[in-house]
């Protein structure tokens, strides 16, 4: 599906809040969440055929991808912990989310994305598999790797 610029503008108005909400949770910073919102839709303007069959699914993937890259680009764990959380991420405390961001920044991209979808967004393995384009078994494998790496980080802390 190739979206016209008018359709992208409409999509921004109808779906933009989803991108902003998830970016706030993942980045823990209002300014970086706002940047993510703009960058995700700028990417869509540059590649309007990228959306595929589900605009919402594409926006979930694009937001996750952008935010995980940003987390990896942050230089130090200290900065991750210092980032001011603009609002609580659902039930998770700011401290837990800071730890989650730190972990995500160190995980391989596919493992981190699976962990975001399952642990942060609460998706079932089937939903994660749909977004990642892989099997449910592969999702289970990715989530186990995330759990083990988090457990390793817990031991070394």
């Amino acid at each position: 599906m190739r979206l016209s610029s008018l359709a992208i503008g409409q999509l921004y108005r109808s779906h933009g809040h989803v991108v902003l909400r998830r970016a706030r949770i993942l980045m823990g910073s209002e300014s970086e969440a706002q940047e993510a919102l703009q960058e995700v839709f700028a990417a869509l303007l540059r590649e309007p055929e990228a959306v595929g069959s589900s605009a919402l699914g594409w926006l979930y993937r694009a937001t996750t991808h952008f935010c995980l890259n940003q987390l990896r680009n942050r230089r130090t764990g200290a900065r991750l912990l210092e980032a001011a959380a603009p609002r609580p991420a659902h039930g998770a405390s700011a401290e837990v989310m800071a730890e989650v961001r730190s972990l995500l920044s160190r995980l391989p991209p596919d493992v981190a994305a699976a962990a975001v979808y399952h642990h942060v967004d609460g998706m079932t393995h089937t939903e994660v598999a749909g977004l990642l384009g892989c099997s449910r078994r592969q999702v289970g494998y990715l989530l186990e790797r995330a759990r083990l790496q988090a457990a390793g980080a817990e031991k070394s802390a």
Partner: protein
Amino acid sequence: MNNPFAESLWPACYSGLHFDRFLLGELSKGDAEELRLHLAGCARCTACLESLRPGEPLPPLRVAATGAGQAAEAGQAAGAGQAVGAGQVLALRPRRWTRPLAAAAGIAAAASLLLVLRAPAPSERRKGSGFALAMYVQHGEAVRRAAPGESVAPGDAVRFAITAPAAGYVAVLTVDPEKRASIYFPLGDRAAPISAGLDLALPQGTRLDATTGEEHLTALFCTAPVELAPLRAALEQGALQLPDGCQETHLRFVKR
């Protein structure tokens, strides 16, 4: 710290994606009905769903196309009182994340973009007050200096350049086709310092949003770092009065 991945951080029985699909009307009738029945008996999911409803209005879709670091540095530089210097060469490149995203989405990676502002040709130099605003447009791989009334496309990258007759303070504001005014430059609250010079590239680029129509740019050159918020508001109301010590110049372009 306990292992945060030992259990879900999500507080509801259904995922955020499922709730979003429900709110956006993208669930099948059967799935939507099933969720409604569940919500009727689950306070936790009801509360979660309510928290996902859109709240505050979104900002206008306008993206600084330079890297985050560059844009932030530009803002900090302006805030710290550093002048935009003559002879700057600025590059506009896609964000690093766009390439893996493109790959993930099954599309070809975009070629690296490069926008380099050139010094104006002698014939372009101006006389008179000497204050001038220029705009460079990157469409695909091609970069051009925009003529007045230039037609551009949503998604094009633009960058501004100022010719300043003396050291002073500069800002670029715009009124978009929906009559909303915003500040293109600087990122801070006040006009940013600039040194005297020809075609000085402003240190942040912008990628144009999806709104089509005619956009009016107003550049201000002032002797003091004037506050921009009241000027933006006045511009939006069509009642901009120049502060003392300021001069203005205009440029318009059309997004099609």
